[in-house]
């Protein structure tokens, strides 16, 4: 069996690591990488290197929800299927409550929640009837109090909730919904959240990618619908 895999947020960080890792899976025939930064996507492509998978990069702003139906339709037309959807794109702008602007709230929710839901809705149109998998990246911030991260943490709580709900709602369609919640991981987003932290001392994106790849393998069919915490115990 060959599978078509769509990854959002693949221009850097965890999404890039997931793209590199997924390219090494033997049954991935097509990889579609989505994020705004086209150069970052090309760099991810270069880092993937030689692979039998066909890699397409699509530079677009996922907060433009109106563009998502066309995006997904186009992917399906060009690649013939959508089997795996990895919603990894994320945005954070840590601020105290009084400094959290409407724009911050809107962007955070547009990228982290609304675009994810729209991607899932559109992808499911094409995935139904096939053994597809959707994997959403939430955060440990979804379930613990994070003063100063109100927009981000609450948006990630929504990701956990929508993932668990859809795991149930889509049960019986052949589509499994997974949600992973990384702890602190050395990426640009984490630097925004914890500017004073030394990235060498925390979990690396490849470690999260390893877990993602294992969940998306055909044989795994028991961990969907659960908030899976991925963190390095040091």
């Amino acid at each position, binding site marked *: 069996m060959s599978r078509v895999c769509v990854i959002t947020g693949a221009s850097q960080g965890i999404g890039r690591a997931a793209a590199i890792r997924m390219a090494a899976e033997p049954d991935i025939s097509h990889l579609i990488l989505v994020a705004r930064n086209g150069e970052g996507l090309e760099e991810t492509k270069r880092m993937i290197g030689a692979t039998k998978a066909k890699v397409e990069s699509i530079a677009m702003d996922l907060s433009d929800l109106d563009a998502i139906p066309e995006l997904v339709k186009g992917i399906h037309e060009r690649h013939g299927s959508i089997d795996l959807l990895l919603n990894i794109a994320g945005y954070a702008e840590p601020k105290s409550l009084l*400094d959290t602007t409407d724009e911050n709230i809107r962007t955070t929710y547009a990228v982290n929640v609304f675009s994810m839901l729209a991607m899932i809705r559109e992808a499911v149109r094409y995935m139904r009837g096939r053994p597809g998998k959707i994997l959403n990246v939430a955060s440990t911030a979804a379930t613990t109090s994070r003063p100063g991260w109100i927009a981000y943490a609450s948006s990630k709580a929504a990701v956990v909730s929508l993932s668990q709900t859809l795991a149930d709602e889509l049960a019986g369609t052949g589509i499994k919904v997974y949600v992973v919640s990384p702890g602190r991981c050395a990426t640009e987003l984490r630097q925004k959240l914890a500017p004073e932290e030394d990235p060498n001392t925390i979990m690396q994106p490849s470690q999260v990618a390893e877990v993602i790849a294992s969940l998306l393998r055909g044989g795994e069919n028991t961990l969907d619908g659960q908030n899976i915490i991925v963190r390095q115990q040091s």
Partner: protein
Amino acid sequence: MSIGMVLLAGGVGKRMGKPAPKQFLLLGGKPLIIHVAEAISGIDSIGEIVVTCPAEHIDDTAALLRNHGLDRRIRCVAGGASRQESVQLGLAALSACDTVIIHEAVRPLVSSADFQALIADAAPNAFYGIQIPFTVLRGRGKVEGILDRDELVNVQLPQKFAYAPLVKAHAEAAAAGESYTEDASLFYARGAGEVKILKGSERNLKITHPSDLITAEALYADWRGGGG
């Protein structure tokens, strides 16, 4: 007695290794400088407050204070190339007053009571100090001398000085090309007057290294939720 205050937020974090000025780092979800501004907000005896910050952050800092409703009496001005110069610029930006309080945004765990006790103390010049709980030796590469830690003090802020002598001491130090890491040293070295040491607290931590913020989070959580 008229009281002014200089709040130092001027250092673009040199030791933190990151470009974001430290006063904007969050502690318990609030920027460091907001913690200090909250601690002084109810102290009406302080008439005028000057915040010194990097020139490129004057607008952000002022907007932040305004947004938190803490901009009353506060003006932001550009700091200098060194801490000493920032204090001097801050003093110059204040209207002349009898007494000036000096504090820094990177000591966010200061309490309102700390400021009030400092102001209420009869000594015209005073600061908070704590004991040094470890051994300090003199030496560069090899031991060159022993210091008696009972004679040493860990200098904290806030500090309080008579305004005119401090301004004069700064001018003299600048003219002589002397540099000091804080104002009690400068005041003492220039013979500007006696400086009293009040008993400070371990909690009044200075956020210098990344690990200090982690410690401060724990202290803050304990302080806020303490008791019981």
